[in-house]
């Protein structure tokens, strides 16, 4: 158990070595696991990568803090969820998908975004890349890692919450300015 908790802690911190290790260790098993589903080899690799990304993201959001199973089990479960989402989108088979436990439907608070991006989002992505490091950090922690302002204040060493709030405000304004000038 300790090892799993340790790995999760490292994943939460975004440790590259741990991510690489987890990726390599679970790859073969995942591919085997997916062989029962009607998707081809290339897509399996893609799903695997997405599953690992989801694992890392959820770790950062603190959703793995109370994980009771192993990381592999979690990965397989995410993978299954993602495969079902893809197959549903394709609408090719209605009878083949055998969802024994049905748990794959609702277990994951993970939003899989559509391929098609709207222009507003694309502009924001570009604009975000242009922000300074401080803004990137604050906004990432808040919007991506879903951390509370109190937590961020502690992590980044702000003297008080209002100073942090002002900083965040300014960063948002910058983004707005960058995207509105187009």
């Amino acid at each position, binding site marked *: 158990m300790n090892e799993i908790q340790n790995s999760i802690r490292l994943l939460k911190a975004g440790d590259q070595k741990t991510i690489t290790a987890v990726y390599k260790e679970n790859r073969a098993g995942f591919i085997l696991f997916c062989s029962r589903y009607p998707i081809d080899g290339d897509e399996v690799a893609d799903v695997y990568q997405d599953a690992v990304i989801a694992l890392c993201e959820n770790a950062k959001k603190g959703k793995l803090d109370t994980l009771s199973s192993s990381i592999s089990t979690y990965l397989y479960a995410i993978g299954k969820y993602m495969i079902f989402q893809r197959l549903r989108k394709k609408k090719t088979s209605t009878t083949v998908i055998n969802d024994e436990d049905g748990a794959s439907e609702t277990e994951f608070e993970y939003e899989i975004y559509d391929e098609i991006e709207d222009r507003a989002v694309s502009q*924001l992505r570009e604009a975000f*890349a242009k922000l300074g490091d401080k803004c990137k950090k604050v906004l990432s922690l808040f919007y991506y890692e879903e951390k*509370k302002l109190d937590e961020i204040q502690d992590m980044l060493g702000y003297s008080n919450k209002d100073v942090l709030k002002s900083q965040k405000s300014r960063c948002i304004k910058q983004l707005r300015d960058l995207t509105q000038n187009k």
Partner: protein
Amino acid sequence: MEKEEWINRYFEGILTNAELQQFEEMLQNDTAFAEEVAFHKNVKKAITLNEREALKNKLRKLEAPKANSASRIKWLAAACILIFAGILSWFMLYTTSSDELYAEFYEPYPNTIAPTVRGTDTTDDTTKAFRHYDAENYNEALTLFDKIYDSKGEDFALFYKGISLMELKRYEEAVNTFKELNTNRNVSDFSSESQWYLALCYLKTNNNEEAVKILKKTAEVQSPVQQKAIELLAELE
């Protein structure tokens, strides 16, 4: 609460149920507020997509290196095999054709010194030597030719020693023997012939350069082997 505060708390996920309801109502009634919230949601989406893409690129690289090194090794192995095969076939071609030519042009020189005749004196070394030579007992013939040359210094002994050595496939020694024959006597009964056989020895030992040199000289001098020399020279050039 200020609008900004509402939005922060919403994203922090700390609105109470009652507050959430109020939030929903505000979205319905206040267009400016709704737009603001939508903007923040897009910011969240944008950052998320960026982070995911960054990680995806890193993970893709974990897939790729395996393929790279595997195919690079395969490519190297294939290249090595091809190069090796090329060298091997070139070598084989080169040696086979030399061997073929040698086989085509070589034949042991006939016994012109002491043709075996029944009834004559058989204790003479020369006779004995040639008897062995004719019987293809080249080892015995070799020993005797050596003895004859050592004691009498006869040209033919050295010459037939050379041929015997060739028959025994001791080409290096044959080369030395024929060379010795040529340096000893500038004019000898066997000069052209020994040159011819010397050239053949060089051919057999894959020393085509030397063979060609000698053949050129031999081709110019009228002798029983001149024609053969011309022909072999043509093959080699």
